[in-house]
């Protein structure tokens, strides 16, 4: 049975999703905040997530971004009328479609059907929530990193740099690619900040930062996380 995870902090919206989508024959599970939603994506394996943007604690955009670190599950974000920005941000971080509140039940159902149809034709390879590399473990859902089963505290930039490597194991990435991906195109030339960040990441992650195992330099080319 196709399972849908509906995330909204308002119980009446959860209920609205549930009655309408269950009537369509979907199995509907609900969560009332982003953190719970992340857990449920990993524990209940939904085929589609309907995600409200305006939520306390972890907002919908961040939740969407985190889900995309480890899962290709289709996501429909729900935004308020007049918040075009949210819609654009949501689509930019990997949402498949959006619905604008207030919406009619039939529109919601039509969007859900359409997104599910598209996703079923292109079978999605879903990765695991966890990423392992030697003694290193990343929990994409919680944005946490562990080394030898001890938590490592990374800055937001360091974390984004690390998952960039984790998503491209075995591929050499140039300094420029990394700078544009993490800092933005304005930093294209700013090699020094990359060097500093890589050095700090190695300090935190490598047993011996001078002979790194996780983030390796390919002289003249760039950096890579070698396949193990």
């Amino acid at each position: 049975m196709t399972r849908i995870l509906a995330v909204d902090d308002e119980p009446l919206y959860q209920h609205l999703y549930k009655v309408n989508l269950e009537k369509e024959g979907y199995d509907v599970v609900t969560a009332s905040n982003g953190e719970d939603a992340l857990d449920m994506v990993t524990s209940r394996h939904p085929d589609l997530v309907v995600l409200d943007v305006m939520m306390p604690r972890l907002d919908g955009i961040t939740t969407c971004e985190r889900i995309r670190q480890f899962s290709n599950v289709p996501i429909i974000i729900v935004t308020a009328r007049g918040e075009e920005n949210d819609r654009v941000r949501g689509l930019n971080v990997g949402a498949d479609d959006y619905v604008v509140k207030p919406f009619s039940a039939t529109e919601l159902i039509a969007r859900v059907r359409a997104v599910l149809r598209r996703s079923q034709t292109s079978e999605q390879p879903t990765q695991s929530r966890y990423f392992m590399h030697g003694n290193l473990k990343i929990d994409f859902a919680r944005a946490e990193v562990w080394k030898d089963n001890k938590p490592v505290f990374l800055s937001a930039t360091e974390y984004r740099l690390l998952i960039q490597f984790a998503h491209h194991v075995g591929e050499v990435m140039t300094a420029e690619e990394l700078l544009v991906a993490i800092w933005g195109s304005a930093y294209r030339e700013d090699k020094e900040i990359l060097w500093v960040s890589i050095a700090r990441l190695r300090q935190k992650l490598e047993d011996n930062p001078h002979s790194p195992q996780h983030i390796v330099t390919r002289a003249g080319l760039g950096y890579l996380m070698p396949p193990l």
Partner: protein
Amino acid sequence: MTCISTKLEVIKPEYLYSIGNIITQATEWKPALDEISQLVHSIIIFDNLAVYLSDSKNNSVDVMYARAMGRGRKAEADVSWGETLANQIIACNQTILREPSLDPQQDRLQQAYMLGIPLTAQKICLGAIIFIRFGGPCFDSESQQLAEFIAGQITLLIQCQNLQLEYKKLEAQQAQSQLQEDFISTITHELRNPLGFIKGYTTTLLRSDTTWDQTTQQEFLEIIDHETDRLEELIENLLDSARLQSGQLKMQFQQVITDSLINTVITRTRLHYPDLSIIIESDKNIPPIVGDAGRLAQVLENLISNAVKYAPGSDIAIVLRKEKEYAVISVKDHGPGIPEQYLGHLFERFYRIPNQAPNVHGSGLGLYICKQIVDSHRGYITANSIEGKGTSFDVHLPYKP
């Protein structure tokens, strides 16, 4: 007259270091200047010291600092503070050294040597600092250098203080606009949610591709009905608040018997909350008050619905007490209470206690409206709360307004 250096040694770096230290540690420029003048008094010999600041708004120059440090302080203080010189310096934005015409017959006090330095930061002249010495010798170039250094340092401090003042003003403005923004976002949220539910559940009922059983239909309709009420209440509150703000909410005063006021309120409350347990306590023979019964009922109903909302599951006590000049109506609950730091803000327009549970709705208008209504009865409302024990709102209404 040629200036002979008054000291044999040049200015030691230690002095500059100490001045720098005073400046970086200082929060206000006047005490800092006091300290500096003590420190350098052995190098720059002066009797009077004054700082003039120009007020660009009024196009005027005011003396902001004056110290007489010489031996004959009192007499010297009467003579000269270099005000004319200050005006000149501010006009031309240059250091000016002024020496008296030498007349041996003249009294020392008539011979004022003045060193005036503009206080300039980023090419804008904020004012001038004037060193005055009576009876020579004149200020040598070393003294002038050190004085200019001091002037530069003090300028930085003055500028920093000015910026802090501006910053505080902006901060207050920002807080005000933040309040407005919060209000707009609360109201948007509060207006949108009921609308979203009404739209959502109506279109659910209207779905042509499916049918709903009687109970489900009933449930959806109740949601729609309830959300319509919520919307109406919010709009009423918004209108009331706007009318109160502009003084257009007219009260219809008449004699009100508090007992019957409370009975009316309780009858209506039971309609809305049939399961709510309400305890009533009342003193005997409370004189009637003069007020608008409808608006007073609105106050009490608002307090009760707040209690239901923020102290779910608690019973509610309505206590009517006779005081000397006031009838006091209290609405008490045994809910979680309100942390003390928020109590003072409760009656402010748009105020909401931070970090409310997301499902507790409110616009930050209800208590503001209550207070305004009670105030217009020449009464007052207070909130008392003990965390973990409960909250009491006490409405004091005078017998004679």
